[in-house]
Each structure stands twice: as structure tokens, then as C-alpha cells.
């Protein structure tokens, strides 16, 4: 059942993604160029990504928790401030969480 649902999600998200990309090339530019619409589309990823950061760092199911992932996030932010490349940021965060867990925390 899970298998089927995951396929539905993969295919549906893929089709919607293509239609959104395609739409940019065929719709009249008018409505999309409207300043307010532009502003919403420009900042929408910020709201979503911030939400995903919170979910992935501080939630387990419907519980809010503080564990080794939070330490990983702090290290990731420090790495970003130091202008580390994407892959370095990700590896440092994973290593931090893995290290803390190996020591028995989180």
C-alpha cells in the first residue's frame, strides 16, 4: 500500500512540476508579471524551506523534540556563515549528529 502511494506521489509531483515549468512558456506574462504575484512567488520558497527546516530538525511525528539534529543545524548555520559549499554544510551537519549519537546523546 505504501509502495503504491509513494508511486502516486512521485508521478503526481512530477507531472505538476512539468506543467508549472511548461506554463511559464505558454501563459500570457501579464498576470505573472503583476508586482504582487511576483512578490508572492519570489518569497514563497522562503516560507516553505523555513517550515521544512523546523519539521526536519525539531519534529518527530507530531511531537516537538530537541535532539542531535538541532546541534547538526547549528553547525550547518556556522558553515553557511563561513560560506562553505552545499555538500560541506550537509556533511558537517550529518557528522555532528552522528558523532553526538555515538557518544550517547540525542
Amino acid at each position, binding site marked *: 500500500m*505504501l*509502495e503504491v*502511494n*509513494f508511486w502516486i*506521489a*512521485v*508521478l503526481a*509531483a512530477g507531472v*505538476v*512540476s*512539468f506543467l*508549472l*515549468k511548461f*506554463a*511559464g*512558456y505558454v*501563459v500570457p506574462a501579464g498576470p*505573472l*508579471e503583476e508586482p504582487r504575484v*511576483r512578490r*508572492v512567488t*519570489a*518569497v*514563497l*520558497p*522562503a*516560507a*516553505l*524551506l*523555513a*517550515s*521544512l*527546516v*523546523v*519539521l*526536519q*530538525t*525539531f*519534529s518527530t*511525528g507530531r511531537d*516537538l523534540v530537541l535532539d542531535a*539534529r538541532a*546541534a*547538526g*543545524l547549528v553547525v550547518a*548555520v556556522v558553515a*553557511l556563515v563561513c560560506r562553505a*559549499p*552545499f*555538500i560541506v*554544510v*550537509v*556533511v558537517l*551537519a550529518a*557528522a*555532528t*549528529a*552522528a*558523532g553526538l*549519537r555515538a557518544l550517547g546523546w540525542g
Partner: protein
Amino acid sequence: MTADAARSAVVRQGLSVAVATGLYGVSFGALSVTSGLSLWQTCVLSLLLFSGGSQFALIGVLGGGGTVGAAVAASSLLGVRNALYGVQLVPVMRPRGWRRVAVPQLTIDESTAVAVAQSTPELRRLGFWVTGLGVYGFWNLATLVGALAGNALGDPQRYGLDAAAAASFIALLWPRLRSREPVAIAVVGALVTTALVPVLPQGLPVVAAALVGSVVAWCWK
């Protein structure tokens, strides 16, 4: 700069973006299989959806136990910006024939960014194709490598792969936080999510954060 030198500069730029972006396909592939998707589902997702943020969002919601609807909604909302890129690229690319499918599929943050940064229409088209095709190739190859590695790893938490997912999202968010408005919207998104996680079914807090963020952006100033 001669025309040839200008062209090879664009090619170098596009390829370095392609390699750098493609590399994090490894972490996508590994996270996807540890979130419960199969190797095939993971690879089809990268081939078909081909938009990093949307892919991470989809597996994040599914892996967290969210519904198919919530996962597709979160992923699709993150893809809305690609429509806006298309609008900017119409006069540059003017896709005809088979390109009417290929050009939109390759329209992502990176190909758009490299294309619009060039000085002539010819160099913009070159930048788009080199970056778009380059990222497509590396991203899909890296996804496969990551998915195979992820399958071999065992318990993802032992390696901190859950923290790697959180770090991926903050790294995708970081370059957007250059002015007050996106920072404010990000804070609103984070607060709405924190407040709603305990009360809404899984997957819906992301959608709610996107909706509240959009309303705030609509009403800004």
C-alpha cells in the same frame, strides 16, 4: 574578450554549476531511500520532477508520515517559481518542436541564473543549455549513486542523515535571506510550523506555512 573565449567562459561557468549542484544529488538519493522510497521511485523522481527543493520537500513529507496530498502540495508550491523563470526565458529560448518539452523540463534555478547572467542572446542560450543539461546529467547520476549508497548504509540516524536533510533545507534557504522581506517570511513560516506541528496531521504544517507566508507577502507594506 573574443567570441570563442566568451563562449568557453560560459561553458566553464555552466559546468561548474552543474558539478556543484549535481553533487548534492548524492544526498538526495541517500535521503530518499532512507525515507522509504525505493531505488526506482528515487530515480524516477529525479528524472521526472527535476527540481531539488521540490524533491527534498516531497520525500521529507512522505518520510515523516504525511499524506500523498500534503507531499505533492508542498513539492508543487516550491515549484511555482519555475513558472516565473519560464516567463523570463521565453524571449531568450523561444522553444520550438521537441524543445517545447526539453526547455521547460530543464528550467530550474541554476539554468535560469546562468542564462540571465550572460550579455548576449546567443550566450544566454548557450548558458541555459550547458547548465540545464549538465545539471540534469550530474543530478540524475548522483541520485543513483546516493540511492545505492543509502540502501547499503542501514540505520540512517546512525550516520546523521536526518540532520543532513535539515542542513539541506537550511542551505537551500540561506541564499534567499538577503533582504528583510524573505527573512520575515521565513520567520513566519518557521513559527507557523512550530505552532501547528502538534495540532495538524503530518504534512499540513508545511502547506499552512506556505499559505500564511503568501498572505504576508501579498499584504507586505
